[in-house]
């Protein structure tokens, strides 16, 4: 294959391009041609296609997510809001906490162990990139019916993957959820949350400024994993027989990630970086375009300097590769040597792959030939925005009318019936003890876990001298949300809020993972619109801003969407963790109160 350079693109305007296979729509492809004033090169097309995918561009959800900003409650606690890798919250005593929940649903269905493992890896790098030391993880999960044969394939792999990766990183697992419901049979939900702690002055942002500053790629070598994964995996629907395409699956290396964490924290401590970004979905396409567009000036990358695991990769593939455990940093020339030294200490490969330039373009070269020449903002931020049609489903009234209200639900009228009802509840997999899962997770490592399973919220001490701590709970109820998306999202928030308060912490901020079906279905889009509206309204009332989160769409099997499942995480602060309130009765003779009505 000949190299598709910018010059070549200019000379061959009519060349056929696989924009459709890469998930782009005709009008999106036309937009790209308009932005560039020519046809894109293969490498440019790769970048636009991954960055403009639903997963990276939030093109269907953006118009609704805006409300989290518009209805943002006044809060002194927000240090960094939506838009960065993760939001940052002031928790006092000079400390800041960052937390975020993300999904890895589709990859985990295809390859449960690696899908879930790399889900943990991805969210941990997001938190690290903010300048924080990751201190805990949580894992809200949804599976199909407990007795379905495919649950047997999916569940043990997912749990082992979360444990395998999180345990090896040395991050305590302080909570999560396990819910079984047939609606998740062909589309389990694997959401992962990470909490990180830093001092205010350590906050780092993803931006590249200052001409002459170096772009350093460090961590794992780049391989052929997950190429096209972003656009295909996260945006296409599975049919009932399983995944139609089997794109390369990413394999995680938690040991490499542990080294990445330690080296990065040492690099932060010595103040060696100006801007930093993790490589997640969309890999280098995302990191370079986001860093460049958030800064001033342009960027020049020599793509052939990227260390490869597979020497046959083309520039397009290198730009799209989702190889795990990589980060990209902007470093002043005078600090490069020390940066590389720290990486060497931790056996982490680090390479200068380019620099910040005076111009306004992101230019990428392959053995001296220009293969990408784009305005970085057009890749990272100016993706399409859809106002998808939505309408209250025709079946919504019937569904609500059929709901078991107090009047219609037959109450047990005798001992036998009461026993049967009790046994039915007690025997439900959703009520059963989760210890067979949580016993596979390390909750002790780091030695700061104050509350973890089976408590209402997870709580972590962040200062051993003052006993300052934070707590997090996640909740979500797809059945409620299906019945009434507006209220269902609010219920999820209220429950997580209560769980944090019950442990003794003051709720401060919210992160959310919005798991829904196809946005192209007006019914689903209505659920999404209602749930976001409900969540934004409730956050305003409770005074807890949404600091960030993640949207996962196309969660469906064939035409059937999962229950709309917004998972809401609430973060709280407690100034003295020794005053925490565990669940359970501590001593005989204590009084029991019921609060609320």
């Amino acid at each position, binding site marked *: 294959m000949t190299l598709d350079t910018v010059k070549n693109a200019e000379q061959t305007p009519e060349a056929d391009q696989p924009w459709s296979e890469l998930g782009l729509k005709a009008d999106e492809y036309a937009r790209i041609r308009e932005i560039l004033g020519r046809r894109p090169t293969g490498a440019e097309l790769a970048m636009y296609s991954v960055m403009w995918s639903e997963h990276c561009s939030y093109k269907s959800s953006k118009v609704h997510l805006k409300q989290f900003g518009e209805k943002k409650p006044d809060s002194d606690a927000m240090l960094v809001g939506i838009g960065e890798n993760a939001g940052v919250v002031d928790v006092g005593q000079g400390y800041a906490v960052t937390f975020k929940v993300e999904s890895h649903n589709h990859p985990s269905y*295809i*390859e449960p162990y*690696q899908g879930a493992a790399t889900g943990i890896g991805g969210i941990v790098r997001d938190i690290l990139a903010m300048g924080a030391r990751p201190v805990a993880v949580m894992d809200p999960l949804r599976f199909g019916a407990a007795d379905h044969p495919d649950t047997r394939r999916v569940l043990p792999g997912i749990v082992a993957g979360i444990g395998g990766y999180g345990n090896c990183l040395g991050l305590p697992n302080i909570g999560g959820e396990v819910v079984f419901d047939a609606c998740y049979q062909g589309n389990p939900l694997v959401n992962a949350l990470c909490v990180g702690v830093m001092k205010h002055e350590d906050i780092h942002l993803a931006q590249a400024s200052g001409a002459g500053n170096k772009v350093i790629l460090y961590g*794992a070598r780049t*391989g*052929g*994993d997950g190429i096209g994964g972003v656009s295909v995996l996260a945006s296409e629907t599975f049919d009932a027989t399983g995944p139609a395409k*089997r794109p*390369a*699956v*990413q*394999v995680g*290396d938690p*040991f*490499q990630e542990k080294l990445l964490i330690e080296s990065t924290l040492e690099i932060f401590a010595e103040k060696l970086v100006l801007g930093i970004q993790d490589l997640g979905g969309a890999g280098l396409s995302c990191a370079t375009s986001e860093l460049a567009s958030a800064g001033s000036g342009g960027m020049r990358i020599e793509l052939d300097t990227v260390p490869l*695991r*597979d020497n046959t990769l083309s520039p397009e593939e290198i730009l799209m590769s989702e*190889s*795990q455990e990589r980060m990209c940093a902007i470093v002043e020339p005078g600090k490069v040597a020390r940066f590389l030294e720290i990486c060497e200490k931790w*056996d982490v490969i680090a390479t200068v792959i380019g620099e910040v330039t005076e111009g306004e373009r992101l230019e990428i070269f392959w053995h001296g030939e220009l293969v990408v020449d784009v305005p970085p903002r057009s890749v990272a931020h100016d993706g399409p925005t859809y106002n998808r049609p939505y309408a209250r489903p025709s079946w919504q009234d019937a569904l609500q009318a059929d709901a078991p209200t107090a009047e219609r639900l037959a109450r047990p009228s005798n001992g036998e019936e009461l026993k049967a009802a009790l046994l039915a509840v007690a025997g439900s997999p959703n009520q059963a003890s989760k210890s067979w899962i949580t016993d596979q997770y390390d909750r002790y490592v780091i030695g700061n876990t104050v509350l973890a399973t089976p408590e209402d919220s997870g709580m972590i001490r962040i200062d051993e001298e003052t006993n300052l701590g934070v707590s997090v709970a996640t909740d979500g109820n797809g059945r409620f949300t299906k019945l009434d998306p507006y209220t269902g999202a609010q219920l999820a928030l209220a429950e997580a809020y209560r769980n944090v308060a019950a442990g003794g912490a003051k709720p401060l901020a919210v992160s959310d993972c919005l798991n829904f079906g196809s946005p192209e279905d007006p019914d689903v889009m209505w659920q999404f619109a209602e749930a976001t509206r409900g969540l934004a309204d409730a956050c305003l009332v409770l005074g807890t801003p949404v600091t960030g989160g993640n949207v996962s769409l196309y969660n469906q099997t064939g035409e059937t969407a999962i229950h709309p499942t917004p998972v809401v995480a609430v973060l709280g602060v407690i100034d003295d963790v020794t005053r925490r309130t565990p669940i359970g009765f501590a001593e005989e003779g204590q009084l029991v109160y019921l609060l609320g009505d």
Partner: protein
Amino acid sequence: MARVVVDVMLKPEILDPQGQAVQRALPRLGFAGIADVRQGKRFELELEGPVDDAALARIREAAETFLANTVIEDFVVRIEEEGK
């Protein structure tokens, strides 16, 4: 009894962190000249009956559906040579 071996290796394009860790350690231990290391699994199956085509076909199916994860792994089924 007859023995059939199933070797399961990660596909070449899939990252093999274990093999890499071994490869990086070897030179430190004084073993130079090794360009690449991949680590996989070896299953030794002892059959009750003879190793005929039918038995091999069944084992191949077991490897395909169970012993290997063909999303990320390749496998080879072979009859163990005498004297091993």
